[in-house]
């Protein structure tokens, strides 16, 4: 068998056993209990919550992130093994949502870690979450969920953005802008 075929098989298998990190932030976490328990029962898709990031495949960012939380999220994300997938929940992860003018929440998650899929809504209903899970499986099957590869490839850019956010520094942002202009 060729290497490509093996990859196909491994994707086919792994999309049916996605374990998620049990890490919730923001209000979107409120919609997880019905998804995890018998009402929507995500276990029928082979998904369940895992206590440690090293054994998990997906990271759900369930809402707004304070800079302090972002530090923890980055740490968790980096501890996860490849391949790993990130789903951003709700408008807060997309553009800041109703916290667009808060001094302490990041506005666009994809500047700091690669996001494979966003779910619209504030907050997304369990139906939307289930739909996103199916979509993610589909993307994995087709080999489109490549956020983890992006993180490796553009590691320095992600790290630069993370450093800027952690420092809350404006001048550092300007310096980098000037560097880019040169």
């Amino acid at each position, binding site marked *: 068998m060729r290497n490509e075929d093996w990859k196909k098989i491994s994707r086919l298998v792994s999309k049916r056993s996605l374990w998620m990190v049990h890490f919730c932030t923001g209000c979107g976490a409120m919609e997880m209990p019905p998804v995890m328990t018998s009402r929507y029962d995500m276990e029928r898709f082979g998904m369940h919550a895992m206590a440690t990031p090293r054994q998990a495949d997906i990271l759900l960012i369930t809402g707004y992130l304070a800079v302090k939380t972002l530090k923890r999220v980055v740490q968790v994300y980096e501890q996860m093994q490849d391949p790993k997938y990130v789903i951003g929940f709700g408008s807060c992860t997309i553009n*800041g949502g109703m916290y667009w003018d808060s001094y*302490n929440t990041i506005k666009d998650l*994809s500047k700091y870690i690669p996001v494979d899929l966003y779910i619209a809504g504030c907050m997304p209903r369990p139906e939307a979450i289930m739909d996103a899970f199916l979509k993610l499986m589909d993307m994995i099957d087709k080999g489109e969920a490549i956020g983890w590869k*992006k993180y490796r490839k553009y590691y320095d850019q992600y790290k630069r*953005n993370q450093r800027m956010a952690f420092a809350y520094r*404006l001048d550092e942002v300007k310096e980098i802008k000037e560097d*880019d202009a040169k």
Partner: protein
Amino acid sequence: MMAQELFPQAQKIREGRIRIETTKDEVGTILRKLKENGYDHFVMLSCIDWINDGEFELVYHMWSYEYREHVMISIRVDRENPTMLSLRDIFPQIETYEREIHEMFGVNFIGNPRLGDFILEGWPHIPPMRKDFDTEKFVKDFYYKIPEVREE
């Protein structure tokens, strides 16, 4: 004894709401006296920035389950050099509120050993809850200017 009997200067705002305006030095005595007289729940400590007066207002909220009465003890501190004595020996939970107000408004609570990074880690600007901190400008100049990850 109810708060109005203990302190003649207490104003009744409405049923179940009492406000006492006092000075920095007397807060400790008032809190202790209230604690001994059935007001044994320290609810919270809040802070208001009266920028035009050049003062911060600190409000100590107390509650009595016995009288079902909410007492607010209000003091003003100077905005330029805001200091206040820590009252963590009366109610230990005050320590946490003092940490928060130190971080958000920059009030220095003398005698609190844990005034340091709390919710914000390594915040280099003026405390963000002060009225002269322009949140919207900060967000636009900072978060929105962090560059997107460019893919080649």
